[in-house]
């Protein structure tokens, strides 16, 4: 059971990593912010799976923190959004 949960955790991590590559390579500045949200949710799912696989309930706390702070970082991104007139599309 532990082994299969770890496998699923690896799968979720890889799926999130693939999404991360797509998002970070995007030419649109705002799409890169999705990386934070992606890792917040994907990381939380990975942590919950790992925590159950290794019977460490404290990992749930890390997952909680990850979700909380990814929301915070998304909010922090609005700083300077109105001030900067950075072009959206880069050639």
């Amino acid at each position, binding site marked *: 059971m532990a082994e299969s949960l770890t496998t699923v955790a690896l799968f979720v991590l890889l799926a999130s990593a693939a999404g991360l590559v797509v998002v970070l390579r995007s030419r649109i500045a705002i799409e*890169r912010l999705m990386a*934070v949200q992606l890792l*917040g949710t994907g990381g939380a799912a990975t*942590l919950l799976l790992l925590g159950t696989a290794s019977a460490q309930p404290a990992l749930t706390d890390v997952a*909680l*923190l990850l979700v909380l702070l990814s929301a915070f*970082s998304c909010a922090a991104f*609005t*700083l300077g959004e109105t001030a900067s007139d950075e072009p959206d599309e880069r050639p």
Partner: protein
Amino acid sequence: MSLVFDIALVSGLIALALHVVVGRDGKGAIVAFIAFGLLLGLAWVRLAAIDVALTEAAIGGGLTGMLLLKAQAHLASRASRATPAFERNWHVPALFCGAVTLGLGYAVLSFPHPAPSLAREAVAAIDATGLGNPVTAVLLAYRAIDTLLEKIVLILALIGVWSLSTDNAWGGASYLRPAMVPEPLIFLARVLPPFGVLIAVYQVWVGADAPGGTFQAGTILAAMWLLVLLAGLRAAPETRLPTLRMMLAAGPALFILVGLMGVAVAEGFLSYPPAIAKPLIVVIEVALTLAVGGTLALLVSGPPDRAPKP
């Protein structure tokens, strides 16, 4: 299977770090760094250091990211926009850094073979502190002097940041609210802080016996406060307020007071009388959490940039 997992994690970390270095756009690099911090939290979990994972996720994935984004927004509006390229002879530092990496990697691979460990000693003495989490015991009992000095470093850094304000803004407040606050941000700033405060209290509470503790809780409190300031729901306090300064100093001051009390009734500075060791540690933890939260939030807000109201 778990080794495959670790390899995936490590390659993700290195790829993100490379992206930060070679990425052309500054904001994208900072977002990649935030993602790096979140992923690093996972790496610390794999190293069975959950206390560190909590701290790293909170600081690396949260507060440092906000600090950098804020600086980026400020610089982008002021400094020249053109990003200069790397120096032509970037190969020399690259070779040097490669050599450093190789040397360090060699050192990692040739660590001594029964690994030295203080885990035995840390566990053997833990009953005297009444705590269940050895990391908290190290931080607040065995090596309390480190934690005390670290608090003082935080205060010194804050004094340094404040001193960089202009003359007429000294003692004023720093301005965090963006020119236009989107509606969802206000919603988030209303709804998230109660959860955050709850999680922070929980972290302090479980920190005695399970992973968690003052730094993590203080960081969460700082993040929540910054969220409220960011949405403009509350104004940032003026830095000349005596109550604010006293609150920041209260944590370390209480710590020093307890330490001096140790000289009188126990074996020396910062040694706790065994009978009341645990209550003392809990009191210090609560005071430190508030002081850490306040200091970190003010460090992120930066030097005051508005003149104090007369």
